[in-house]
């Protein structure tokens, strides 16, 4: 196992390089003089000169890439001109907030999605299946930001059960119960689409597995139907569900951008959108690389979980 994890970590290195290269190339598509383009409205002569020095912007493209990469490897992601602070500090602070929101939503959607999918498959064409299928369809069709807005209208404005927005109350908040009260709506709104996708996939994976010969073997042995569904079938279905959980984690992280806008959540998504609108390119670049790298590491965890489940993937 340790060997597998090590190997998997090793194989992440080229992917991380690839990510930086892709981001760099996309950013190189910006037309015009790079320093002026990157700085946008902050392009004062001093700033341009400093950036040119830091990033060697007069150098050829590939040299610039390695300078940028070398700086990043030393923890220097550059400086946000709009916020006037180091990119990395800002990104880490914002990413914490995103992690709380997206992590909660991810746990929520994994659990509910898989359970809904299994129940739906076990009761195929029954009432529970039809109800879940309809709810799922609604879930994957509603834009999460619209759902969030409607939740605010209902639960915050009309019923006054939950706070409208933010992460902590401005006065007197800051403790865990306060965080949870602020978290309920955004995490729910964020998880709805993913619950739908995971439930759908779990249902079809379960149906696929339930037709397999080894399920008939389990039944022929006299295993109780509960064990057939939740032990034999679900374990086999998890082999195709787990990779989708990995992909859905990316979708939850993506959806967080909208939800952070709706609920004024101080996360990295809102930071990125603000940065794009203010043309704070270095902040965008650093934020994208940092979050993508975290996602790559998360996918390693997913792969390790998969290899623990399925003995056929060794080496």
């Amino acid at each position: 196992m340790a060997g597998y994890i090590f190997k998997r970590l090793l194989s992440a290195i080229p992917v991380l390089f690839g990510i930086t290269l892709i981001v760099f190339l996309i950013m190189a598509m910006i037309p015009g003089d790079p320093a002026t383009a990157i700085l946008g409205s902050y392009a004062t002569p001093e700033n341009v000169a400093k950036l040119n020095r830091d990033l060697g912007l007069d150098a050829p493209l590939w040299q610039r890439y390695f300078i940028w990469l070398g700086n990043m490897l030393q923890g220097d992601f550059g400086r946000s001109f709009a916020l006037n602070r180091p990119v990395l500090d800002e990104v880490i602070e914002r990413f914490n907030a995103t992690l709380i929101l997206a992590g909660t939503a991810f746990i929520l959607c994994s659990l509910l999605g898989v359970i809904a999918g299994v129940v739906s498959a076990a009761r195929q064409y029954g009432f529970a299946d039809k109800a879940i299928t309809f709810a799922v369809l609604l879930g994957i069709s509603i834009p999460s930001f619209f759902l969030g807005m409607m939740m605010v209208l209902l639960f915050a404005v009309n019923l006054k059960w939950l706070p409208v927005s933010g992460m902590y109350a401005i006065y007197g908040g800051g403790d865990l119960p306060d965080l949870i009260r602020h978290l309920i709506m955004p995490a729910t709104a964020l998880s709805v689409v993913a619950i739908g996708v995971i439930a759908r996939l779990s249902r079809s994976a379960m149906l696929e597995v339930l037709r397999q010969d080894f399920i008939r073997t389990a039944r022929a042995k006299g295993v109780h139907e509960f064990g057939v569904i939740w032990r034999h079938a679900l374990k086999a279905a998890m082999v195709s569900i787990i990779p989708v959980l990995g992909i859905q984690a990316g979708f939850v992280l993506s959806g967080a951008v909208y939800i952070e806008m709706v609920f004024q959540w101080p996360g990295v998504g809102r930071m990125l959108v603000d940065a794009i609108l203010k043309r704070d390119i270095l902040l965008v670049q650093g934020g994208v690389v940092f979050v993508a790298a975290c996602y790559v590491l998360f996918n390693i965890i997913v792969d390790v979980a998969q290899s623990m489940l399925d003995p056929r993937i060794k080496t």
Partner: protein
Amino acid sequence: MRQFFALLFRNRLAAAGAIVMAIVVVLALLTPVLPLADPDVTNTGDRFIRPFSDGHLLGTDHLGRDLLSRLLWGTRLSLAVGFAAALIAATIGSAIGIIAGYFGGRTDNIIMRGVDMLMAFPYILLALAIVAALGPGLFNALIAVAAVNVPFFARNIRGITVSIAHKEFVDAARLSGMGDMRIILSEVLPNVIPVIVIAMSTTIGWMILETAGLSFLGLGSQPPQADLGSMLGEARSALITNPHTSIVPGAMILVIVMAINLLGDGIRDALDPRLKSGALSRPKPATLVDKNRTEMPPGDPEALLSIRDLRTEFRIKDKIYKAVGGVDLSVRPGECLGIIGESGSGKSVTALSVMGLVSSPPGIITAGSVAFKGEELVGASYKTLRAYRGDRVAYIFQDPLATLHPLFRIGDQLTEAITSHHAIPKKEANQRAIELLRAVRIPNAESRAKSFPHELSGGMRQRVGIAMALANDPDVIIADEPTTALDVTVQAQILALLNDLRRERGLAIIFITHDFGVVAQLCDRVAVMYAGRIVEEGDSADILGNPVHPYTSRLMACVPELGGGKRELEAIPGLPPVVNNLPAGCAFAERCANRQPQCTNQEIELIGTGSRSVRCLFPEKSLVEDRELQ
């Protein structure tokens, strides 16, 4: 194509989706000619007019612009962008996927590594990066959404292409002299297109959501131009005071995406051949039993297992396949009964019907009785069936790789067979599992118990299958072609093992096979099945030495036997009948040399004397006499 639309519209939800979508598309197309206010003209005096007011059916927004007009123009734009993005992503992604999948090797490796890199981003980061580079704007958002979805298509289509490129018909096309390009276009592409269509129809809604999302963030369409996402984004600040400005575009997105998803699911279902055959339904824990069946008193009280007039059908759409059409059989303690027949003869279905293991739907038992020691099992509760399954009546199946659970250790699969029926401590069950592995002569039983099925060879796996059947010392074992998937040298080992075990333990076995040699070596009695019915039954030595039904004798003659040298074989003309359209009378008559008019105009009974019976009006008596003369 007609069939496709018929299938699509039979699905009521998909039809509803199609209708809603048609209305939306027509409205979007007609928008320029409809008598609407200019969507972009501001009139701050009329801001936030409520819906259903004069002149503004849906009210106005924060700049006093007519919401209905903006909604229709916005829908038009959102649809166009969504479709365009889907089309671009599908075309580029599929092309990449097909090339990678077809050529394989290095090409595949390089392309797929690139795709993996792109998929290593949470998709929105990539989209945001692209928009950041190109600048906000609807066209740039379209490029971003399309680009982000290319890897999804590429990966999906590559997988399908790989499986098609390895099909034998592609090899056949090569041998027909076709080049790579021609094979891709004429052999691979037609088989991939349904998958592309499915992938597109199920992601188009998603693309509309994504573009709306970018516009919502202010990165897509720029004011004053309206699309649904930007309408929602602009309305957000007035959400609490004037919710209608948010609800109108939001509800529209919901309606459009939902209609597209319904339609997409319908298209997927109509194109997926597995769904047509009903193969994706979940088999129930026990085979369905027709409630209106004619009940049958249990047969032979002395028998361990007695089957009377068993009928099992498969109901697939409007067709009824009568897989088992009235079978009578019984097994006594310690006896080995062979059931022999070709594929589709109903031999396996008969065996699976005993413990209600026929997949249902589409299987259903419509009549007859199966009694174990006098207790009726057809129509018995699931609880009763489960209590017998694996405890008194155990099964061995054909392909041991598919029939063992791939993710459980074989020791655990064995202990589960025991603990499902007997509450004994785990340690004791483990000990018993190891004894069972020894009983089927698996070397190093202790360490083998910790292996997973894929770590064993085919023969070893089938030994595990046998050990599992023995777990609770059952009275009857039903073996459904247990050696068909094995090589002959391994088959010989397994048959010898089964034979030893049955003599040691006094087991009754029902052995299903298509091989006369196996029957001759293992079985005391044999029943020959054809088109769902028993055509001949008796002691196996007797039947094999002296077949009376023309089918049995012709079938035996057409199997080449070792030692005969190069020769012309005796063939049976024609094909076995399809069981959804059985002829009247004898099902074999069409292929039979002894056929007379009587054969096809009446039911033919299974009649016999003593241990021997046959379902034939003109059995091969001459043959019998010949043998007796010799």
